[in-house]
């Protein structure tokens, strides 16, 4: 039963229970319990933007088709399609590597806001002071995702998981580990 439950969670999911991953500062005796990514629904805006770019490209092709030679047409289209694919890939990387990690020892939040900007915040359970969740909007309520704010003691950075699925379950897990 446990095996079949674990097989359901692969690394591409946004709520992964005990996935087969390691992170940079992981200790030998530390086990990853949860890996959280933004809910796929929250990724729809950039997918739509990319599709709009494809539609625009087709429109531009129709308008300029008679004005360009075949070689110009091929090069311009190859460039445009490469840009659009790069746009999709860039956003996928930002989605895939923006993770919240809950381990047996601590909570780690890895953030790549623009792929080129890395921000890692982590805290041990004993320093957690307060956990709050927020599910803003209809989509967040309907698809059960939201933000989790973990306030820490002292000068430690607060940890924030954005648009993660099942925020209440995640909060429960963290609270249980803190006790």
């Amino acid at each position: 039963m446990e095996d079949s439950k674990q097989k359901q969670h692969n690394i591409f999911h946004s709520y992964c229970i005990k996935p087969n991953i390691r992170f940079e500062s992981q200790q030998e005796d530390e086990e990853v319990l949860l890996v959280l990514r933004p809910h796929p629904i929250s990724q729809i805006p950039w997918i739509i933007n990319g599709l709009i770019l494809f539609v625009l490209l087709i429109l531009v092709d129709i308008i300029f088709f008679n004005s360009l030679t075949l070689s110009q047409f091929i090069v311009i289209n190859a460039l445009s399609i490469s840009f659009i694919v790069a746009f999709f890939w860039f956003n996928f990387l930002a989605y895939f590597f923006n993770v919240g990690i809950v381990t047996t020892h601590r909570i780690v939040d890895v953030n790549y806001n623009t792929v080129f900007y890395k921000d890692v915040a982590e805290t041990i359970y004993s320093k957690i002071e307060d956990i709050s969740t927020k599910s803003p909007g209809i989509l967040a309520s309907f698809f059960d995702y939201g933000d989790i704010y973990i306030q820490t003691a002292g000068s430690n950075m607060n940890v924030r998981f954005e648009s993660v699925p099942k925020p209440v379950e995640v909060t429960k897990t963290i609270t249980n580990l803190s006790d």
Partner: protein
Amino acid sequence: MDFYGFIVGGGSTEFLIKTVSMVFSFLFFIYTLIVYRQTIIMIKTLTVSREKIISFISFLQVIIALVLILMSLFLI
């Protein structure tokens, strides 16, 4: 004058398209190199089972960018 000629003012469109495509393909090449490098850093931060596929796709973009430079140099 067609729509395209109207936009570029009827000038040397071939030269303009070649220059623009060369500049953009070169900028795209630099961009893909940075993304590839960043992908390697990301994989080091979070080691996943499909890391080779992810780094390969980023590397493939670098190759495509090189092909685009060649295309804009010799095809137009």
